[in-house]
């Protein structure tokens, strides 16, 4: 019965798709191109399953013929689930037709197709568990309130929520804030728009998992084992939804529903839960998602879902602004005897004495102590403050050190949020995340302007300077060991990062000090010591020890890597890299594109297209993923001549790295204002214009040996 219903649903969707494609061809001709925006994977689901890139309507029609072959009709599970896959592919075809002729079919609040860049961004939080899961909510909840409560419950756990159908209107009805920033992404109102989240899961397999397009078995194993997604489908479940659900189940995503009519349960896959308020727990149990619980005693929610929340001036109760007044944040290690654990002190007036919308000074000093605490860990903890404070519902934090800005929203204030709560959050998170080295922790919050000024100059700035000295002395040569980082292996099983002082992890999130602290905190964890006692070629950054480590941690998938070359055994990427560089043959240089950049590069490829050249732990000479900070490193492609090979970067990226990059160029080559010689999208988006520009500026790359 269940199987027959799936077949019926599949047949119905297939019929619609066939009609839609025929109509589109009749109107636009078979040569008319079809594509989703901002992806290098064409129709990602169809491409991943079959290995075939569909680019025109005519090819789409051929593809539909292939889909038909999946629709076998034996009354067995595999036939039913493959019909589910066929339904999903049909949905992708219907959706791509909406984008025909450059149309923008989705408007606020719906997103429709999601860009490759978003997936690359999701990589790290998914592996670290900051995003512990992905919920797909489909249909209308029994009441709008119940629907919103369910969404809220996932948000509070940091789960990324995607919405399809009636639930989107239910959110609007209650004015519930949605959007990628708060991790609630309305996809679209048609059931076929569910494919946009499926497409995310499938591209994750291509990007991080190095799954070969067309290897459906590996694809399904990847999504089932590594993408913690699940579906909540509200009744009524018709045959079409059931068929789409079968597709989800084939990908390994359980479906939880309150439907009871004409349906049979499948353990672990199709689960009845009549009580919508229990959808959350039932789903987490079904997908085996464990939520890391840090209970923090504050009057508002604390969850990674709020990390991207933006508080506009009009919504803000008070602001602490380090660009106008003296503010700073600091971690300071002290002797345990000097610390009273969990003491939170407010020195100065509290938020409720401030006028609405006013600006103030703030300084918070987190004092930590413990037997294994090292002062090198101070900046590691401190860099986490940004994320900690942003996870508070109604609090926004930007910047670091003495250039911070913190906003508290009116809603948070009204809920009772006060300055001391900042201390509660910092205390709880530091103790929870770094329990192996922090035995005791206390927090001092200063809001007295004079005290903030005094401490900034007497305590904070000298400390920052001391740290900077230490950092500038930290070079690849000055340390005895490097670290491996395999944090991403949950997602990208054969990738290994080698983290050195001058080369941070390609995700930008793991510096050598971070790796050192991680190793200290969890000696058997993702960061392991790599010795550097057996150099092969220090110019290339080739070491026997490094090769051995890479081979071991990649389970033999990788034989060797060099630290400083992008041509010879370049370091691999998981896929969540901040930037990618690729060789630009006409200028003997390289171009770099960052994840946020949506435009074209002189290589004729966008970031998503460049990014798709590598990732998943494979070596692609000439292309390499890396962190933003690495751009100004003296070790950046040192083997090929270093940073003087950089010929093009998006403007925004160029500006953000200019100061440090110019300093390095000055030091290495004596070039002043090196970034002025580097092209950007306002100068050139094609190689000819770029080379002309470089020639005019006398860019040093032009005089270098060709790289290949």
């Amino acid at each position, binding site marked *: 019965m269940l*199987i027959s219903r799936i077949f019926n649903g599949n047949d119905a969707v297939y019929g619609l798709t066939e009609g839609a494609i025929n109509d589109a061809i009749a109107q636009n001709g078979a040569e008319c191109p079809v594509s989703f925006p901002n992806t290098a994977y064409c129709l990602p689901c169809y491409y991943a399953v079959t290995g075939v890139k569909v680019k025109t309507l005519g090819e789409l029609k051929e593809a539909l013929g292939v889909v038909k072959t999946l629709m076998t009709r034996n*009354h067995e*599970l*595999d036939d039913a689930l493959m019909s589910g896959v066929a339904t999903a592919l049909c949905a992708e075809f219907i959706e791509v037709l909406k984008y025909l002729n450059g149309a923008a079919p989705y408007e606020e609040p719906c997103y429709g197709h999601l860009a490759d860049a978003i997936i690359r961004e999701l990589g790290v939080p998914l592996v670290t568990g900051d995003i512990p899961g992905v919920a797909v909510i489909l249909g209308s909840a029994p009441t709008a309130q119940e629907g919103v409560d369910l969404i809220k419950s996932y948000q509070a756990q940091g789960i990324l929520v995607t919405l399809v159908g009636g639930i989107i209107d239910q959110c609007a009805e209650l004015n519930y804030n949605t959007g990628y920033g708060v991790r609630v992404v309305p996809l679209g109102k048609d059931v076929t728009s569910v494919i946009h989240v499926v497409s995310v899961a499938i591209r994750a397999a291509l990007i991080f998992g190095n799954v070969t397009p067309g290897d459906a078995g590996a694809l399904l194993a990847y999504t089932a084992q590594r993408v913690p997604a699940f579906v909540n489908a509200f009744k009524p479940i018709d045959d079409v939804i059931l068929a789409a659900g079968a597709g989800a189940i084939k990908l390994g995503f359980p479906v939880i529903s309150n439907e009871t009519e004409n349906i049979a349960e499948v353990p*672990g896959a199709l689960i009845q839960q009549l009580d919508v308020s229990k959808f959350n727990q039932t789903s987490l149990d079904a997908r085996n998602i464990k939520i890391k619980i840090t209970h923090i005693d504050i009057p508002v929610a604390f969850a990674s879902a709020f990390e991207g929340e933006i508080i506009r001036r009009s919504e803000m109760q008070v602001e602490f602004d380090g660009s106008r007044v003296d503010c700073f944040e600091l971690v300071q290690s002290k002797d345990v005897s000097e610390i009273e654990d969990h003491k939170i002190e407010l020195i100065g007036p509290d938020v409720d004495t401030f006028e609405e919308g006013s600006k103030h000074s703030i300084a918070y000093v987190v004092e930590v102590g413990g037997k294994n605490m090292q002062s090198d860990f101070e900046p590691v903890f401190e860099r986490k403050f940004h994320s900690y404070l942003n996870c508070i519902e109604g609090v926004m934090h930007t910047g670091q050190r003495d250039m911070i800005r913190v906003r508290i929203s009116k809603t948070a204030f009204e809920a009772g949020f006060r300055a001391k709560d900042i201390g509660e959050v910092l205390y709880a998170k530091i103790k929870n995340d770094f329990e192996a080295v922090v035995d005791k922790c206390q927090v001092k919050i200063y809001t007295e302007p004079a005290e903030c000024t005094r401490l900034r100059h007497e305590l904070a700035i000298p400390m920052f300077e001391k740290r900077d000295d230490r950092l500038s002395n930290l070079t690849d040569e000055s340390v005895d060991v490097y670290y491996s980082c395999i944090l991403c292996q949950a997602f990208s099983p054969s990738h290994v990062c080698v983290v050195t002082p001058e080369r941070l992890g390609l995700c930008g999130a793991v510096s050598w000090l971070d790796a050192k602290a991680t190793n200290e905190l969890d000696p058997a964890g993702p960061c392991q010591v790599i010795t550097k006692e057996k150099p092969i070629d220090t110019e290339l950054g080739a070491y026997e020890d490094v090769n051995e480590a890479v081979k071991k941690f990649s389970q033999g998938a990788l034989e060797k890597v060099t630290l400083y070359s992008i041509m010879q055994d370049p370091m691999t990427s998981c896929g969540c890299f901040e930037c990618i560089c690729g060789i630009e043959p006409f200028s003997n240089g390289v171009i770099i594109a960052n994840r946020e950049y949506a435009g074209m590069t002189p290589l004729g490829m966008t970031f998503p297209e460049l990014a798709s050249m590598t990732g998943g732990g494979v070596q692609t000479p000439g292309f390499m993923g890396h962190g933003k900070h690495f751009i100004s490193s003296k070790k950046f492609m040192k083997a090929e001549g270093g940073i003087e090979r950089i010929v093009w970067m998006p403007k925004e990226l160029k500006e953000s790295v200019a100061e440090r990059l110019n300093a390095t160029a000055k030091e290495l080559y004596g070039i002043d204002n090196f970034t002025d010689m580097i092209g950007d999208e306002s100068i050139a988006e094609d190689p000819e214009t770029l080379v002309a520009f470089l020639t005019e500026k006398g860019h040093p790359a032009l005089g270098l040996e060709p790289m290949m």
Partner: protein
Amino acid sequence: MSEFKLTTVEENEAATERLLETGAKVGADAWQFRVKNQTPHCKFGEQGICCRICSMGPCRITPKAPRGICGCDAHGIAGRNFLRFTAGGSATHSDHGREICHTLHTVSPDGNYKVKDPEKLIRIAKEWGVETEGKDVYALAHEMSELALLEYGKPFGVQRFLKRAPKHTQELWAAAGIEPRAIDREVSTAMHMTHMGCSSKPEALVKQALRCGLSDGWGGSMCGTEFSDVMFGTPKPIETEANLGVMVEENVNIIVHGHDPSLSEMICEYADDPEMIAYAKEMGAKGITVSGVCCTSNEVAMRRGIPMAGNFLQQENVVLTGACEAIVVDVQCIFPALGPLSKCFHTKFITTSEIAQMPDSDFVKFSAETAGENAKSIVKLACENFKNRKPELVHIPNLKKKATVGYSLEAIKKTLDTVTNSHVDETGTLMPLVDCLKSGVLRGAVAMVGCNNPRVRPDTAHIELMKKLIANDVILVLSGCSAQAAAKAGLMDKEAKNLCGAGLKRVCELADIPPVLHMGSCVDISRMMVLSSDLANDYGCNISQLPLVGCAPEWMSEKAVSIGNYVISTGIDTYLGVEPQISGSSQMEELLYDKVSDWVEASYTVEKDIDKLGDLMIERIEEKRTALGI
């Protein structure tokens, strides 16, 4: 994708050939030769129409002589033979159960036997209406043992365990007049009915055969299973290995063979004893390996992970390895051939039960009271025998497979609990299995049981049917020599999921189980009866409606007939690969293959073409699914 491969029947046969070469060197006999000597078999016997019940005969029925001297026709003769065959099996299983009940009477906190699963004891006591509150577990065990023993001879009433069956099944039994009374009585009644000058009406004989079978499955066997669990622990999933390669050349090899776990449990206990291991080393071995043959092997594999050297038709092979120091046997399915065979090697053939005494064996009388001493002396004897090995005769075939065994009903429910959703489902039920059946993830289930029989190429029918069924998303529960055939082939390796249809594979992955579940020895088919009862209750239908069938493709013993009778009586259609000896009577065939279902909603099907047998089962399962509307 996977390098996982089954061990083929051909590989097993090649290993056997190699062992028979050793046998030839020492002048050993083997069943393979005896089969040739016995072929062709007596047709009258095969058809069940030879009557030897009184000394006026034997009488044999032919077209020219359609009646025996007393006037009994082919139907009466075949029916009587069938009932006697059943009584033999029922008596055997039930007497095994009785031994267990007696052993239960000896349990004490510091004795040879203890109560390892007090929870189960209390659960059964409550089921039987025995007060458990504030009672010492051992006192309760003794009380339960006496009550259980009364089940064998109680003057009035029917078997206590019948209440475990669904109400509908109980009503069918009552209506057909086949509710088993005292266990021994059903055997006696069978013997009485078949005495010269009593019953010759096929219906009456078949009904008693069903009743006598039920007294085994829902009486004696069930006592055997349940109280073995109480004393030795209820099996839970455990890793082990199977096939001759489990024997270890440099160790003292002790083979346990037979059916009653009381002996083998003790042997295993002492083989683990540091004192004994030291003794083995003193004798020049590196250690002691105990492995099993037949159902004793199933018992200790399920509870201790003791490896399984082989099944029924491999019993001579263990001796032919030349590396077997002692083959210690208790009761049932032991070839008298082991006596003379052991004389060709250094092997000690040690019989232990007054029930199974054989020439050319060392008899060490085993009793519950002296079990520890007995076992120790046997292990010692084996160690001392190590030095008598003839190295030139030693050859252990390098064949073995991993197996996960130990799926008692309790363990199955516990495993299913792992796939439930703690916010939706109740635990301790079979609902996940019901859901899988309803949704079509699994098409059905087959309980495959039984022996080996040289009439079938050994293990082929078991293995080929299992492969076919799992590829069609049919899950299997196994016991006895069928289970060992699967384990030897590798079907109990969790990797065997790769041989399954997509639905069963999914279930295997989700529940982390192999596609064929080892439920125990042949008395443990009683577990399957409770499983099917609970499944019907959880589904909300009758047992006979479930997409579930029984199968014994290579059966040979009287016990198997008794089992078959209680399995069909429980409402489970049963498929046989070897014909029961009744073909001389059209009425008996009609009854067993058809009419019996009027009483119990299930019957036998015989098909010697194994592939067809598989098709028939799948067809029946699909019929039942259609009838249920799933």
